[in-house]
């Protein structure tokens, strides 16, 4: 008997060890088993350790940020000497916020703000000596051209008046700043030419944008051209060939943004460099050292590149051969254009950051973008098109899970934020997070989205609660008609405007959706509009034109604000809210939640007092996604 017991204990122990062993193997193996297992939340939303890779002008050094003592610090490695990396800052209280190569030996950086105090430093890569370029002051900084020319670079600070940014040139040798241009109050963006001279400014009263130009820093700015907010003209940079010419994206006199060259002396468009019949041309391909456009990018169903420069095209071709099947974009390069930092991605792969030397044709991986997701079986994102009820063609994306729950797939409708934004094809951790949990993810570029021309964009004006929502609903109906998803298990989730759409859907489409989740959604558009201070009248006017006028059309605003319609909600609701979000107030959200609670509507409410519009703290973010996943698991079962 005793012996038998001993044997059985041994056997149990054996099995336990065996099981433990299996678990360990599973952990160590990550996703290598290629089974569609549930990947932990952290793996999707943790920030990568190594970020912000930047190559020195001579291409010999690569700097990046990595954690040291719980804070981001600058590290430098030499690609020629593999395995040699050196930490050159030792900040343990406040991490590095931003940095750039001042020259081959010195990096200029700012630290995370504490009590709104800002300082600018420079650190020598070899001696590790840190210099104070600008003493602490409670101002905000915006970079204008992070490039040191003649021992100086341009920054803009709101030192004189907290609401306007003046331009200063910070001298790296004298550690002194010098006022370059005074902001009359309406300049929202400044541009420097190739010599680091401040010669172009974009003034805006929000409804109207005006380009100001001067031939040299000695002259005064004079307005060259202006356009209403319905049009847009976005300067990219000065041309190297012609001192007076700038490259810009413009949709003046056309519907889609095109890449053009403008003569700033006259304000006339000299030539159209590239335009696409269906979509806007994106920003991209400008080299600030040479003053030329090497390519133009535009997004149809996915990002495309039209090359304007033979050399660049060859570089991309060479890299593409190395990284077949991946989308590639160059993040940084040396002045000689032989060494590059680039990143790769696909819809199913977060990709990695690489160093590439074209002369030696050597590709070195610097870091995986999401190491935890490496080799995981993730879901494919497919472009779709449908027609809305009024016949307008709407594009979107459908991500079907690798392993669905049940016979028909439950689906999460995920309207993008904005609405002046669009969904793009590529790796999206939130989409993959949902897909990994067995949900299909449906994203639509409803009217009012950008990237499809100004007519498409402006057709969303005053339609926040109208045709925009109809487009989303029509998309869902189209998806149901396609027959691949379970029409009884449709949830809707979004952040910001997407959250607003989710709440709107919960109020007015309770029969279509089984549950709705809002992440800092605009529950009350009155509050949203209140964010614009009243002294910015023109700016307000623009908002009133896009959304509606709360003074003259309060009923319109009331009709489309979910906070007034909580009585219509019949489905479980999830609400996440940061206490410092200025687009919606905690009081209102609390009231909204209480009303739903009183009506016995199941509600998950995550309130983080210390957070702003979106959760920044990693712990809070992980908690948020964990709760969100649990919410959909429960109500889309």
């Amino acid at each position, binding site marked *: 008997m005793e012996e038998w017991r001993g044997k059985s204990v041994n056997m149990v122990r054996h099995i336990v060890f065996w099981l433990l062993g299996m678990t360990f193997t599973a952990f160590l193996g990550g996703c290598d088993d290629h089974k569609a297992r549930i990947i932990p939340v952290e793996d999707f939303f943790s920030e990568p350790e190594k970020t912000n890779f930047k190559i020195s002008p001579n291409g010999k050094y690569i700097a990046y940020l990595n954690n040291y003592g719980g804070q981001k610090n600058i590290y430098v490695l030499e690609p020629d000497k593999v395995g040699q990396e050196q930490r050159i800052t030792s900040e343990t209280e406040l991490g590095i916020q931003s940095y750039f190569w001042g020259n081959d030996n010195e990096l200029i950086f700012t630290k995370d703000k504490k009590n709104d105090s800002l300082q600018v430093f420079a650190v020598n890569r070899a001696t590790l000596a840190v210099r104070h370029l600008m003493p602490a002051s409670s101002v905000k900084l915006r970079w204008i051209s992070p490039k040191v020319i003649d021992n100086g670079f341009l920054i803009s600070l709101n030192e004189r*008046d907290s*609401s306007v940014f003046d331009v200063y040139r910070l001298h790296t040798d004298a550690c002194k700043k010098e006022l370059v241009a005074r902001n009359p109050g309406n300049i929202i963006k400044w541009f420097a030419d190739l010599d680091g001279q401040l010669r172009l400014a974009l003034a805006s009263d929000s409804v109207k944008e005006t380009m100001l130009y001067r031939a040299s820093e000695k002259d005064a700015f004079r307005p060259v051209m202006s356009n209403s907010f319905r049009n847009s003209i976005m300067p990219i940079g000065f041309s190297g060939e012609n001192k007076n010419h700038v490259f810009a994206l413009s949709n003046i006199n056309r519907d889609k943004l095109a890449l053009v060259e403008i003569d700033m002396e006259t304000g006339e468009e000299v030539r159209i460099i590239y335009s696409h019949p269906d979509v806007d041309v994106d920003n991209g391909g400008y080299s600030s050292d040479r003053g030329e456009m090497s390519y133009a990018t535009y997004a149809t169903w996915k990002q495309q590149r039209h090359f304007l420069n033979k050399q660049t095209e060859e570089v991309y071709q060479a890299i593409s051969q190395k990284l077949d099947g991946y989308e590639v974009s160059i993040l940084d390069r040396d002045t000689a254009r032989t060494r590059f930092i680039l990143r790769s991605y696909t819809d199913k792969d977060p990709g990695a950051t690489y160093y590439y030397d074209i002369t030696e044709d050597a590709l070195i991986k610097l870091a995986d973008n999401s190491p935890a997701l490496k080799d995981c079986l993730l879901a494919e994102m497919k472009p779709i098109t449908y027609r809305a009820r009024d016949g307008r063609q709407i594009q979107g994306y459908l991500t079907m899970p690798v392993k669905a729950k049940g016979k028909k797939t439950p689906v999460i409708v995920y309207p993008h934020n904005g609405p002046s934004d669009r969904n793009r094809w590529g790796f999206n951790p939130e989409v993959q997070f949902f897909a990994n949990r067995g949900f299909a993810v449906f994203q639509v570029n409803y009217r009012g989205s950008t990237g499809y021309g100004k007519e498409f964009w402006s057709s969303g004006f005053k339609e926040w609660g109208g045709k925009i929502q109809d487009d989303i609903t029509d998309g869902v109906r189209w998806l149901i008609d396609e027959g691949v998803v379970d029409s009884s298990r449709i949830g809707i989730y979004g952040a910001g405007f997407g959250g607003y759409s989710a709440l709107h859907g919960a109020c007015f489409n309770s029969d279509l959706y089984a549950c709705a989740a809002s992440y800092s959604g605009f529950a*009350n558009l*009155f*509050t949203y*509009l*209140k*964010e614009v*201070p*009243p*002294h910015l009248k023109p700016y307000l006017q623009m908002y009133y034109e896009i959304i509606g006028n*709360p*003074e003259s059309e*309060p*009923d319109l*605003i*009331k009709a489309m*604000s979910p*906070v*007034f319609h909580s009585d219509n909600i019949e489905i479980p609701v999830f609400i996440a809210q940061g*206490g*410092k979000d*200025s687009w919606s*107030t*905690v*009081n*209102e959200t609390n*009231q909204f939640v209480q*009303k739903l609670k009183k009506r016995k509507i199941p509600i998950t409410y995550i309130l983080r*007092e210390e957070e702003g519009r979106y959760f920044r703290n990693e712990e809070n973010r992980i908690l948020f996604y964990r709760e969100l996943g649990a919410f959909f698991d429960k109500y889309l079962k």
Partner: protein
Amino acid sequence: MTHRRNTYRINYVLVSAFIVVVIASFVLALILARDLTITYVENEFASRKVEVLEYNIGPFNDFFQNRIPEISFYQGYLDSAGVASYADSVLQTYPFVERIVFYDVALSNSEYIDYGFSANSLVVYPKGVYQFSQHNKPDSQSTATNHTTQLPLSLSDDFNNMAVKFAAFIERVDTTKALRDDDIFKVFYSVTPGKISYMNIPRRDDLKTYKELMYRKHLHDAVYEQDILTYFIDPNKLSLKNTVPELYQHIQIQPLVYESIDTDPDLFTTETPLPGALADYKIYFSSSRPFLQTEINRRFLPVLAGVVAIYLLLAVIAYLIYRNLYVNKRMFKLQYDFINNLTHEFKTPVSVIKIAGNNIKSAKQLSDNERIHYGRILDEEADRLNNLMNTLLSFTQIENKSIKMEREEVDLHEFCDKVLAASKIKYGDLNIQCNVDAKRTLYIDPVLLNSIFQNLIDNAYKYSKPDNKVLNIQIAQTKKQVTMRFADKGIGIAKKELVHIFKKFYRVQNQYNQQGSVGLGLAFCKELVNFMGGNISVESELGKGTTFIIIFPVD
């Protein structure tokens, strides 16, 4: 009376004591139940007013918790037109809201505004004051004040009150922290009896801006808007519904100081004050004694029914116990009689033997005749005793199922002939006829079957008049069963006795069985027949004869 100790007895004292206790406790229970019901109803009268209060201030709470804070949703964007539609719905839904005064308030840092309330450089002033009342809903009477005219004092009171509180709040507020709930109530609400003022709660960033305005940190001339609404509440118009009509005869809304001048001592009253803005009124409840009495009776009735039901149940149980005892008593009597009879039965042969023995002993010489005579007597009486004992033994055995059946194929013709021959010897004057109509043999224990025949023949002989001792035995066989009928022309059995005759120790009381009967014969027969899988039944007519029918199944 000592002999009663060992016999069955009924204690009438005990029975009557029991009945008295039961009745007394029943009455006590009723009295207690009634007292409790009265106390309960009186307690309820005092406590259920909360229920009435909760129900009747439901609309007010809804108004206070939902409709008033709704103003904040508009973020100060409300103008007179917006408030008009809002006021319309509020005035219509909540009749106790008498009128609404709307202050379209602006906050500014402008130095040129010379009226309103100013704190440092922040000026809080009404751009317009509008009143909405129930009486002229369609064209809400608006008393918009011109910017330069002084407000009517009765109206500006509420505004000043709110403005002072708000300015003081802005001065002390820590804009880095979220608004606390008690701050919200203290600053943005002003609740006095008959009146509620509410100011929309600004966003955190707005508070920051207001603070900047106050301390001249804001660079621009700015005008921000806030809305203050004052609701005038008339508690008398609160629709009052008596949700507990069985307890409260009358409910009224009365001023807080109201006291009834009714001196009727039979009038019960209680009251509960109204909350918040209704606080100078109370709900006053009154009921007369007869009214409450009806309620008490109504509630007592089911209790009464319950108590009665319990006691009825008790009575039923008592009857069942009595019946059980009665049956036992009868059993006891039967056994007692049996022992009596048995003793008697044994006594006769024993005394005969005793006499015969004495005679033999005392006789000097026995003649052949005498010897034969005494020998026969001794032999007969011994047989009789033996018979008696066999019967008793067999009966006990068969009752305990300890007899072993020894079945064999019995030819009924042969079997009947034997029985007939034996009976002829035993009862010379019994005229037995036997008709056997059976082709097959019966598989049965012949000894036990013989016992049955013997018993039935004995009975027929015993219960027939001496001049008419006739027994007709008929045996018929069908496919499934063998039927044996024993028909005599004896005295018969009364109908009411028929059901009992197969019971142990039961004897029909008549002259024929005064001796030599213990009341086991038929019971024994029935046991035997049942033991062998058959069935016995009886048909009889008093004075004409009795027929016993035995049916054995043919396997």
